[in-house]
């Protein structure tokens, strides 16, 4: 086994331990953020250096080191980098627990990196729990009534989802006798179709897996936790949840469903249809409930449910596609990257504004265009990207994913998705309207720290770059999705 391939993960673990210990022995807490960021940069550098190579799987084939895993590792490290940059001000709200905060963010990132790389059901479960348990604690960091309630709700519902997932895994193990994804696929393909048809156990297992992972990606009907948790959690963690946790869920879904249940075709058509139905429901429910929301964090929570719906259009396309067509997979990857920049940008702008206002109500954003023109401009750009209008990244992402769906005969789903995009424009543009046309309550400027501005700038550059010249990013997504071609 080659431990050198495991260096990014080891780095994160060591840095998390160092942050915990440093927090105990030093007074200057701002070093913690710098140490965490340096750890992320080292891990990111090593990960980027691995890109493109073909390496053997490590830990008895439990962790794959392929382009797909490396793509997601870079994504998670980048998101964690932005989260830590944007929390440098926010941590003053819980100054006693800064070390734990940064360490838990790093550990959650570690769990997500493992989630993207695992090719074994047991390892997937452990990576998922490492992520979830870190996030349960992070959600409750504010220690006020809402935050505690959010954390408890997330913990209880998450535990139920884990149990459902585990039950699904147990059924699949009972049916195939394997936990390794590749071996599960071999067993399924070697069985005569009639045996499969006569036994609903495998199908029940797949349905339960969809439910368990659906909780992670916040798809309807597993979305109950989203609004309360998003509202109660510290805003950087809300951003982290909405972007990284969702991306990790999609990474696992892509790998499990493609490598284990990709063939025979009738099976993939089956789960393709499940995802198509979930996509249609998620988009519609998320967008319609987002319309009356008065709290911007809640609104973005429902919007993230809708975005999960658009992403699942890509999964449905993957299920319907023939083997050599990887448009669906690479579409999901590109969408996740552009969604990461977009949603992080929106939340960072919200952090800056609500730090000053101490309120997350949309009506309080009135006149932000005059009080903080740059922040308002960045938020506008991100909201436009969430609608899916050019020149922002959201347009290219939706274009790409809908294209994949149409090519695989899902025209009806794309029609629903486009109608939903139009509906969603209403509530996104309402925020824009309030910010630029509303009267300012006071003429006071909104201050923001350098780190926050840097993070916001990086997000805006990302949104524009992926929207205007998407070629390079699409190429990366295709290379990463290439592991799915037979």
């Amino acid at each position, binding site marked *: 086994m080659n431990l050198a391939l495991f260096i990014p993960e080891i780095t994160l673990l060591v840095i998390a331990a160092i942050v*915990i210990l440093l927090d105990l022995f030093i007074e200057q807490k701002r070093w913690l953020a710098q140490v965490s960021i340096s750890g992320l940069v080292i891990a990111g550098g090593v990960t980027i250096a691995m890109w493109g190579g073909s390496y053997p799987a490590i830990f008895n084939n439990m962790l794959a080191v392929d382009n797909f895993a490396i793509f997601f590792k870079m994504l998670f490290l980048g998101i964690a980098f932005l989260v830590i940059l944007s929390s440098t001000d926010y941590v003053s709200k819980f100054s006693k627990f800064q070390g734990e905060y940064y360490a838990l963010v790093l550990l959650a990132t570690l769990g997500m990196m493992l989630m993207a790389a695992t090719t074994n059901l047991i390892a997937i479960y452990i990576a998922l729990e490492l992520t979830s348990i870190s996030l349960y604690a992070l959600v409750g960091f504010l220690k006020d009534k809402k935050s505690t309630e959010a954390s408890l709700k997330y913990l209880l519902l998450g535990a139920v989802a884990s149990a459902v997932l585990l039950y699904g895994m147990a059924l699949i193990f009972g049916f195939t006798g394997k936990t390794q994804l590749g071996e599960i696929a071999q067993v399924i393909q070697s069985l005569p179709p009639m045996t499969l048809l006569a036994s609903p156990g495998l199908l029940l297992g797949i349905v339960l897996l969809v439910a368990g992972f659906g909780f992670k990606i916040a798809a309807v009907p597993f979305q109950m936790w989203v609004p309360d948790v998003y509202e109660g959690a510290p805003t950087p963690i809300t951003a982290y949840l909405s972007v990284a946790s969702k991306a990790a869920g999609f990474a696992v879904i892509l790998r499990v469903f493609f490598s284990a249940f990709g063939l025979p075709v009738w099976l993939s058509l089956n789960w393709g249809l499940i995802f198509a139905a979930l996509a249609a429901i998620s988009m519609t429910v998320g967008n319609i409930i987002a319309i009356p929301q008065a709290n911007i964090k809640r609104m973005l929570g429902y919007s993230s449910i809708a975005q999960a719906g658009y992403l699942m259009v890509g999964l449905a396309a993957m299920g319907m596609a023939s083997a050599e067509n990887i448009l669906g997979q690479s579409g999901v990857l590109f969408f996740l990257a552009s969604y990461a920049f977009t949603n992080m940008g929106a939340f960072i702008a919200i952090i800056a504004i609500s730090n000053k206002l101490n309120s997350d109500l949309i009506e309080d954003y009135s006149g932000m265009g005059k009080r903080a023109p740059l922040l308002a401009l960045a938020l506008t750009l991100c909201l436009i990207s969430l609608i899916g209008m050019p020149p922002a990244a959201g347009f290219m992402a939706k274009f790409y994913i809908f294209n994949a769906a149409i090519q695989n005969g899902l025209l009806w789903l794309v029609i629903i998705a486009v109608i939903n995009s139009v509906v969603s424009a209403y509530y996104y543009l309402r925020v824009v309207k309030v910010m630029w046309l509303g009267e300012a309550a006071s003429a006071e400027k909104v201050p923001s720290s350098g780190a926050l501005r840097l993070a916001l700038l990086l997000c805006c550059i990302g949104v524009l770059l992926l929207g205007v010249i998407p070629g390079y990013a699409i190429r990366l997504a295709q290379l990463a999705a290439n592991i799915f071609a037979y």
Partner: protein
Amino acid sequence: MLTNYGYIGLFLIAVVLFTLFMVIIPIALRFLKIVPHNPNPIKNSTFECGMETIGRTWVQFNFHYYFYALIFLALDVLVVFLYPWAVNLRALGFASFVAVIILVAIILVGYVYAWKKKVLEWK
């Protein structure tokens, strides 16, 4: 294809019906006066392996026990891993030694954390 999901649905319906049935039986029997209803203090008391119960169920425990339990759990897991390793030390070789040192180091971080946060001091 749909018939397979039909089987699953059938199971679900059976589960729900069975559960409802089990809940309803005692109520129905009570209602039909088949089950006698003569309560007395001994019958109503908690069954505790023949011991007589003392006080109420809602006893307060000192919150400090919780921290001790957490630290105990971590160290307990460490011992579970250490013991089989120590028995087979020679056979497992140097690589396992390094692995165990890493495990001990990780748990040590947690222990130092607890120590420094004054969890071990009884107030």
